[in-house]
């Protein structure tokens, strides 16, 4: 991993020797470059807030959609299928545009770019979360449900105290994947004017005419952000494992 990063860094630096690069736009050693960098990084807060809000909502909605998918009743299962297949089929960008420009016409209220982005990302992701939860819950031994039944736990208690704590441990890597995916997809919300990382870069490119350097910094911003998230998810996995190992 370290070697790979070194090679990437070397490649970027070496290609910087050619006449095509102009690192001065983002050179922290000069005032202009420093203020440009600050401008680029200033979108970080919204990117994180947008992604975290959206994934929090989509995890809850995903779980609520997954549960009917596990029911004995075929209409409940049908509802789950329709939701999952339907939402999964909509491109995120299209959904963002639809929620921001289209929905207010029928809903009678306007949404800020932030909430339109959150709703579009959350709804789109919830279909995937639902499938992850369904698979996780189905992977739990049937005997766990029966044991919970035999000590008089209600359906809600069975899920809350017996099934989900076990299922979530198993689906944690998949949930981490979705969070990474969400961080990346949040860049699409730039299209409706959300002042997150990608939007900031776009705006800077328009004033500086240096897309190569600015988008390279943008790439690195996402890379660092996602490496931090990955490390966090791994730490959480280890901690939950340790819980069981004691």
């Amino acid at each position, binding site marked *: 991993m370290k070697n790979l990063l070194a090679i990437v860094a070397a490649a970027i630096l070496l290609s910087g020797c050619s006449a095509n690069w102009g690192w001065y736009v983002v050179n922290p050693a000069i005032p202009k470059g420093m203020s440009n960098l600050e401008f680029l990084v200033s979108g970080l807060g919204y990117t994180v807030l947008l992604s975290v809000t959206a994934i929090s909502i989509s995890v809850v909605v995903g779980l609520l959609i997954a549960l009917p998918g596990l029911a004995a009743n075929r209409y409940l299962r049908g509802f789950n299928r329709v939701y999952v297949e339907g939402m999964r089929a909509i491109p995120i960008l299209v959904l963002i545009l639809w929620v921001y420009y289209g929905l207010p016409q029928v809903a009678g209220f306007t949404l800020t770019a932030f909430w339109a982005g959150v709703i579009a990302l959350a709804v789109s992701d919830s279909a995937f979360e639902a499938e992850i939860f369904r698979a996780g819950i189905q992977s739990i031994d049937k005997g766990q449900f029966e*044991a919970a*039944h035999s000590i008089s*736990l209600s359906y809600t*208690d069975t899920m809350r105290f017996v099934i989900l*704590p*076990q299922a979530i441990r198993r689906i944690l890597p998949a949930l981490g994947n979705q969070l990474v995916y969400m961080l990346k997809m949040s860049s699409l919300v730039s299209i409706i004017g959300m002042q997150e990382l990608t939007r900031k870069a776009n705006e800077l490119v328009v004033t500086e005419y240096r897309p190569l350097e600015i988008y390279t910094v943008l790439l690195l911003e996402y890379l660092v952000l996602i490496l931090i998230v990955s490390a966090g998810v791994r730490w959480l996995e280890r901690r939950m494992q340790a819980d*069981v190992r004691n």
Partner: protein
Amino acid sequence: MQTTDKWPIVSIRKVSKFFGDFQALKDVSLDVKLGERIVVCGPSGSGKSTLIRCINRLEKHEAGSILVDNVELNESRKGIDSIRTNIGMVFQQFHLFPHLTVLENLMLGPIRGRKMSKKDAKDIATRYLERVHIPEQANKFPRHLSGGQQQRVAIARALCMEPRIMLFDEPTSALDPEMINEVLDVMVELVNTGMTMICVTHEMGFARKVADKMVFMDHGEIVEMCEPEKFFTDPESNRCKNFLNKILHH
């Protein structure tokens, strides 16, 4: 909800159960009185597990009726409540909750199922853990216990609900041979307290020792039902004789 001697605590009347085209139970009838110990045996696939799972409504019967404490088991709330307050169950594969400690396994039912306070639940859990002779394992996770210890925890977990009937579904079949006795010993002690039980097992020594009534099942039917003495010395049906020959002669 006073149970008298007049009606049995569990009454099974002409119960049938299908899995697709396969008929797992055929017109099975069985009465269990309070304090009675019934051992059910028979070849695999004979319907014995299905029968006791129907009593706990882990399986739904399709014909006939099952009454627990004179309340019929069907979709109604009342039937489900009757199971909750009356029946404890022990499974072949223990089915302990792996993410909870032994003590938490025992406390979950009393707290969430019986709405007891945490303190009372802990008291009752500690008491029954002592009853199965492993109070020192309270704070371990199930995976750190031997099979025999796990099954004893499972028995204690069921007892924490203070049921009036205990159902055992082949409680020693998944155990290494040297651990079978520690579980059977706990069950014998339970019998000595007067607990009503229905036990599916092939431990014939245990059956002979504790059973009031032996039930032999084959192909979804009760083929033979009698006292243990007669069952082991002079069974009436050939199917039962064959079965006993197979499991008793080594």
